[in-house]
């Protein structure tokens, strides 16, 4: 059968190319394809009318003057079919030298093709995971089928026959599935997912191939895959009759509307890829426009004007600029959904490999993160998910013995909290064995014997390089690389990891990431000549201190009593060395901020208002300034520093001011 497949692929490719060169009407190409399949089915029978008919049709479908291409295809059709019928190897065994000349000549076309194909493959991947939990859903299968068909068509038209061949084969399987002739069991999904991986690799390596650089030889893999699909199709009739097995891993989504996948694909199809630098420049310029607009709006001449038309137009200008700003800002943000969906795939594969049944639930996939963060968070997240599946979740028998359900729960959650974006990975597995970690750390010489450590400190040791408590090294993890990389990557994003674990009940890893380029709702405060922005989410309340509220220690005001609570005071002017701040506490304002249940009373001169600001990095040259999350361009064009609340808390710990015990 393989020979026949190749023959079909080859002819199909030629047909696509003919239609691409407008030699055949697309409608006719579809008809010819049907004929082609019919002819293929007749291989082995003495009747060669199918092939002849096909050849004739090709001639008819082409313009009267038969170009060389049409001759080629007619010859191909007839000789290939003839050879197959006689059982001899077909003339073209497997599209030997692909003609990449079309793509090599047109880098732009290559880019478009690659971009589209990779997008499609992403869509297919996430849809397939849904297919696994709802194998009979014809609409879903159609949604999977269509992008495959598009990839196949495009690849054929551009002469990338290797991609076309694989896509075509899988398309056949999906076609059977959507017409109800073949059930999509988990084996089928496996094969299709493998095909997605293979195609992704092949497409990603196209530029290298065109440039003549080394690339992965995937011929054997292609053949293997095609064989696997053939085997599935051959055994398909029986599979359709039996009820398909319950899926091993079901990716459940909180907000799972039936129309969601459709909508997403439409979005990706109308997307334009833009250099992030261009985007940054746009955002910067829009920011300046907003400032220019607000300076104009405050202009005394305009304020004093009684011209109604002028003020109407100014209001219009303001509306447009702020709308423009909102849009520009939104462009850099993207939901974490695609990253989470990759994790569903990972969990599914890991679950199969390790024989554990895991149910992954996703929450907050629509939480938007800065593009850069989304890109950077992928690897650490993958490591942590691996780690949870391999070390956290116990094998089913152990779970049963512990009285837990055999189906393990893994949860990914993304949300905003206190000016941070938090991504949580929780499992209901064994939890961390603090005792074991400590012993291992001592054995490896990471901590001295008998060192006093809190359980939290000990748990954090798993992020040390070379640390692994797994007794066996598995294919998935346990080599002691990974978790330290995770921590490094997250720290590079200025984030941090927290661990909560209960022995026997599970572990939650929380990755806290600052909003690097997110818009932050801020409270603008003035201290001396400087102005600072405090993220509004961190602000509990603000108050004018009454004389009786403030308590001094050694002659310095150190504490403020708010209702029943004593809160340590932090003088922002002192902490940041700002001159010209108000000296009398009675004239100042106190802003109570919260970081991880810890309260700090920040002493500032005055509250200036609430404002949405864009966090801009101060630049690499400043490294990490403690207590400062970045800068914001304020309404008058000056820069105000945005306070980093947890950094302030850390600064406070270092100062002489101690919080109340």
């Amino acid at each position, binding site marked *: 059968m393989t020979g026949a497949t190749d023959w079909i692929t080859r002819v199909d490719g030629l047909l696509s190319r003919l239609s691409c060169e407008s030699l055949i009407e697309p409608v006719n190409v579809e008809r010819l394809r049907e004929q082609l399949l019919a002819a293929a089915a007749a291989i082995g029978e003495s009747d060669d009318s199918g092939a002849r008919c096909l050849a004739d049709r090709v001639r008819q479908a082409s313009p009267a003057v038969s170009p060389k291409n049409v001759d080629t295809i007619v010859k191909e059709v007839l000789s290939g079919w003839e050879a197959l019928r006689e059982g001899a190897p077909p003339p073209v065994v497997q599209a030997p030298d692909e003609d990449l000349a079309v793509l090599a000549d047109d880098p732009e076309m290559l880019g478009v093709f690659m971009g589209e194909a990779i997008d499609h493959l992403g869509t297919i991947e996430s849809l397939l995971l849904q297919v696994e939990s709802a194998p009979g859903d014809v609409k879903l299968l159609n949604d999977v089928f269509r992008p495959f068909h598009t990839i196949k068509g495009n690849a054929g038209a551009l002469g990338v026959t290797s991609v076309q061949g694989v896509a075509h084969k899988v398309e056949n399987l999906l076609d059977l599935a959507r017409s109800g002739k073949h059930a999509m069991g988990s084996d089928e999904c496996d094969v299709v997912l493998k095909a997605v991986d293979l195609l992704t690799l092949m497409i990603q390596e196209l530029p290298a191939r065109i440039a003549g650089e080394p690339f992965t030889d995937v011929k054997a893999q292609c053949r293997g895959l095609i064989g696997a699909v053939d085997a599935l199709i051959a055994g398909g009739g029986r599979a359709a009759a039996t009820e398909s097995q319950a899926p091993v891993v079901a990716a459940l989504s909180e907000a799972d509307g039936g129309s969601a996948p459709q909508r997403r694909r439409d979005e990706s199809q109308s997307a334009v890829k833009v250099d992030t630098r261009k985007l940054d420049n746009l*955002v*910067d*310029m829009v*920011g*300046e426009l907003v400032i220019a607009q607000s300076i104009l709006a405050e202009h005394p001449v305009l304020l004093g004007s009684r011209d109604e038309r002028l003020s109407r137009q100014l209001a219009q200008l303001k509306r447009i600029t702020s709308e423009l700003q909102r849009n520009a800002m939104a462009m850099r943000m993207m939901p974490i959904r695609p990253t989470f969906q990759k994790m569903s795939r990972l969990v599914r594969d890991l679950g199969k490999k390790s024989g554990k049944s895991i149910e992954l639930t996703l929450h907050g996939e629509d939480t938007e993160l800065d593009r850069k963060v989304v890109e950077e968070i992928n690897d650490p997240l993958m490591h942590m998910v691996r780690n949870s599946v391999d070390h956290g979740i116990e094998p089913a028998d152990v779970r049963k013995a512990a009285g837990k359900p055999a189906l393990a729960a893994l949860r990914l959650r993304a949300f905003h909290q206190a000016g941070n974006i938090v991504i949580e990975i929780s499992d209901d597995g064994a939890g961390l064995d603090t005792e074991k970690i400590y012993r291992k750390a001592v054995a490896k010489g990471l901590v001295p014997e008998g060192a006093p450590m809190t359980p939290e400190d000990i748990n954090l040791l798993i992020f040390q390089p070379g640390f692994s408590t797994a007794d066996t090294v598995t294919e998935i993890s346990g080599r002691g690389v990974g978790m330290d990389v995770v921590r490094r990557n997250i720290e590079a994003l200025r984030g941090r990891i927290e661990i909560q674990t209960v022995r026997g009940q599970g572990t939650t890893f929380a990755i806290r990431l600052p909003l690097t380029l997110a818009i932050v709702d801020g409270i603008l405060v003035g201290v001396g000549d*400087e102005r600072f922005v405090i993220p509004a989410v961190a602000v509990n309340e603000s108050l004018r201190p009454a004389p009786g509220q403030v308590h001094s220690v050694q002659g310095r005001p150190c504490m403020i009593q708010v209702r029943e609570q004593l809160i340590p005071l932090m003088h922002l002017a002192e*902490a*940041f*060395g*700002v001159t010209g701040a108000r000296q009398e506490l009675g004239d100042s304002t106190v802003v109570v901020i919260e970081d991880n249940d810890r309260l700090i009373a920040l002493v500032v001169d005055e509250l200036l208002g609430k404002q949405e600001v864009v966090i*801009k*990095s*101060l*630049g*690499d*040259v*400043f*490294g*990490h*300034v*403690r*207590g*400062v999350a970045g*800068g914001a*361009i304020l309404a008058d*064009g*000056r*820069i*105000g*520093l945005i306070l980093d609340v947890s950094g302030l808390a850390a600064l406070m710990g270092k100062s002489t001011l101690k919080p109340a015990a």
Partner: protein
Amino acid sequence: MEAMSGRHGAGTPAQQGAAALAGKYLTFTLGTEEYGLPVLKVREIIKVMDITQVPQVPEHVRGVINLRGKVIPVIDLRLKFGLPSQEATNRTCIIVVDVAMVAATVMLGVVVDSVSEVLSVAASEIDQAPEFGGRVVTDYMLGLAKVKGTVKILLNLDRVLGADREFVAH
């Protein structure tokens, strides 16, 4: 730059160094001293604007400014060179330059007393920076240019500022 490594040797390497240094320089003053910057390093010259202080940085880092929507750090060259600081006058300028720091090339603002002119300096006018002894660091000098009876110190800004990879001491 490589030619400068032959500082102690006389003759050919020095001449080569001077030839490589010939070109256009933007000259500016700090007190009574005159300095020159390779003009290709200069992006623009702006008037002094409000500078936002940043905590925990060395004294010579004045803070950050908003350059048309971009946040860029500002260095006071007087303080960097150990000269007494001075109130801004109407001649005080910020020269925006590209500086190659360890990690990447960054845009920086440099506060100077006044900007003079763009000067073409010929190879014959350039002398190597002599050794002044321990009190003066000559590392960041490209050379000395004797033009119209004055001496201008040609600066290698990458050396002046690139040495501190980050401004914040941890």
